[in-house]
């Protein structure tokens, strides 16, 4: 997706000298120099189309205004994006686009994100001269599993057609008829069913294609966005999580309303798959927000402050041979690199624990584009850190085990509840770190609520070995906190190499420490 580095040439945009790559377009060169030229049909993922006429600029020596999205720069070119002629032309283009536009903004889910709306406020502000009645077209066509097309709002930019032609290669949409009657529609008998359909609602610059999942849920200006990484497969697509900060007087059922793609040419380009886009219910549904104490001796009350003390005490009371054979660990690969590294250091290296298993969701099917077959984000990370990823074997797990530390809710999906209960009942002490309130929780003595990837800091290693850092996009609910905090404290508590553990105030420093110890993380971390 990256362009070859070309010779640089000098051009002038609004009298400002700008360096531009040879062979690039005026619009791209301006964008690179931080000058925004309004455009609707141009999308950086596709070759220019030149159908909307929004991007007109004046170029010295050219008699007419030129399309900046498709005009290639030349040495010493003098471009004006703000001259009177350009401003007038832009206004006229907007007037033509809006002549046939229904102005549905009050009921249009795009309002607030709509480029046509934004440009009207910035460059339009004219009184409509269109006195005729507007053309009637289909206002609510279901064109895909979660897409609704409103032909009246369409400005015929063909971004959607080009996406389906060039990215998914399914070609379900086309422009039908001619002139004033032209409209985007679905080919008869088809439907946009591919795993990337949701991107259409995102790239449509107006509210012509909207998402059924988001339909009428809220208004986009209420939402705030946080950057994160999609944890639903090992591609690690970069995403934006759009959440509602809430109203002061009225409670809302959910925080998260929408997931959008975040551009990263190395990982996901401009796109995300529909699983990542629509599968966000895991962020809000069934979350655990309190420490659960099912069975705990004495008058002990556990809080996040003394949880590591409690764990440390239990482990310290074992003989060192017992530690090796009597402790069992069930991990999963939604844990960050840093957390897996700490777990590896504490349990595998220092305590020499033998029984370390991984409980993850069962493998799915890759789709040949972004979605991979691994439905968790950090399997590669666990491998690089040195874990041997073994599936849970309940009879080995329970055999002679006194203390079980389990992470994640996935265990319940792997075995029948009865079998699981039978096996776990043989183990004296069981602690679970999980983000969900789940039946599984009743099988453990203590359940500690933890933050999800969207709510903590750390890094993940994707299927191609790219290490990507992430920051919290949301607040963790209730008492939940990230696992790495407890693990740092536990290391201290166990008195192993105390200097080593106490030096880790944040995942960032853990990662740089990892770079020292594991060459794989070194080279990615520069």
């Amino acid at each position, binding site marked *: 997706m990256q362009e070859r580095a070309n010779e640089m040439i000098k051009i002038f945009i609004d009298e400002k000298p700008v360096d531009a790559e040879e062979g690039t377009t005026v619009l791209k060169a301006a964008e690179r120099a931080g000058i925004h030229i309004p455009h609707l049909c141009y999308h950086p993922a596709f070759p220019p189309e030149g159908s909307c006429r929004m991007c007109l600029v004046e170029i010295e020596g050219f008699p007419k205004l030129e399309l900046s999205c498709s005009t290639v720069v030349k040495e010493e070119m003098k471009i004006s994006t703000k001259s009177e002629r350009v401003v007038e032309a832009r206004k006229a283009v907007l007037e033509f686009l809006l002549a046939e536009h229904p102005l549905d903004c009050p*009921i249009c889910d795009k309002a607030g994100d709509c480029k046509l709306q934004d440009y009207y406020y910035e460059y339009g502000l004219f009184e409509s001269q269109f006195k005729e009645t507007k053309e009637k077209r289909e206002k*609510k066509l279901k064109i895909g599993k979660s897409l609704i097309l409103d032909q009246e709002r369409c400005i015929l930019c063909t971004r959607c057609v080009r996406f389906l032609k060039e990215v998914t290669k399914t070609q379900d949409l086309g422009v039908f008829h001619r002139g004033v009657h032209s409209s985007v529609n679905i080919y008869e008998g088809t439907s946009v069913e591919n795993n990337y359909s949701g991107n259409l609602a995102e790239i449509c610059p107006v509210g012509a294609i909207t998402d059924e999942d988001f339909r009428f*849920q*809220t*208004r986009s200006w209420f939402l705030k966005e946080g950057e994160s990484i999609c944890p639903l497969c090992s591609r690690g697509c970069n995403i934006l999580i759009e959440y509602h900060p809430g*109203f002061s007087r009225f409670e809302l059922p959910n925080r998260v309303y929408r997931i959008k793609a975040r551009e990263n040419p190395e990982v996901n380009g401009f796109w995300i798959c529909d699983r990542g886009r629509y599968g966000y219910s895991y962020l809000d549904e069934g979350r655990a927000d309190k420490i659960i104490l099912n069975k705990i001796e004495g008058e002990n009350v556990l809080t996040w402050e003394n949880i590591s003390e409690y764990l440390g005490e239990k482990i310290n009371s074992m003989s060192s041979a017992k530690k090796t054979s009597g402790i069992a660990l069930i991990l999963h690969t939604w844990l960050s690199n840093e957390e897996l590294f700490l777990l590896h250091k504490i349990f595998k290296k220092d305590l020499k624990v033998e029984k370390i298993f991984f409980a993850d969701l069962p493998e799915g099917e890759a789709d040949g584009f972004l979605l991979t077959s691994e439905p968790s984000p950090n399997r590669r990370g666990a491998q690089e850190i040195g874990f041997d990823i073994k599936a849970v074997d309940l009879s080995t797990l329970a055999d002679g085990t006194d203390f079980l530390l389990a992470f994640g809710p996935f265990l319940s999906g792997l075995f029948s509840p009865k079998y699981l209960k039978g096996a776990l009942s043989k183990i004296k002490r069981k602690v679970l770190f999980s983000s969900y309130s789940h039946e599984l929780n009743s099988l453990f003595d203590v359940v500690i609520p933890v933050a999800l990837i969207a709510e903590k800091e750390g890094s993940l290693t994707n299927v191609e070995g790219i290490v990507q850092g992430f920051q919290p996009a949301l607040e963790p609910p209730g008492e939940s906190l990230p696992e790495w905090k407890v693990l740092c404290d536990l290391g201290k508590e166990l008195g192993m190499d105390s200097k080593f553990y106490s030096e880790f105030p944040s995942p960032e420093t853990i990662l740089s420490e990892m770079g020292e110890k594991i060459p794989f993380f070194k080279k990615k971390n520069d």
Partner: protein
Amino acid sequence: MIKALGYFIEIIRGGLITTRHFVVNLFYHILKVLGIKTKRKGSVTIQYPEQKKEIASRHRSLHRLMTRPDGKPRCVACMLCVTVCPSECIYVEAAEDPDPEIQKYPAKFIIDLGRCCFCGFCVEACPEDAIRMDTGNVEFAQYSQQDLIYDLDKLIG
């Protein structure tokens, strides 16, 4: 000591203001009795609630939601009133109307009048002229805060 003195001075000033109002009003009332017309009138006390003053035409009173000819709410749940309301006392939940020409209607529309400051911004913001504050009803005090939370039925009412 000095502080106490200031206290008495204020009491005396207050007394003087009351006296001034009394004398000025008495003066205008006497002129009226004598049949002399003046521009300024003496103040009078209205015996509310037995006696009521007429409400000015551009007053703001209890909200109402307008309806379409067929009785459905005119509101399209665009939430502009929710956005503009400085007291954050409006809550709207949208739902899908089967009619593709309407598409969106409010499944829930709640105004917490206990918080409303009667600024009228919601009326200004509404693109559909769906909400108005022209009922003339200014007497909706309640004993409980809960009774001041108006829903769709009460607002269309």
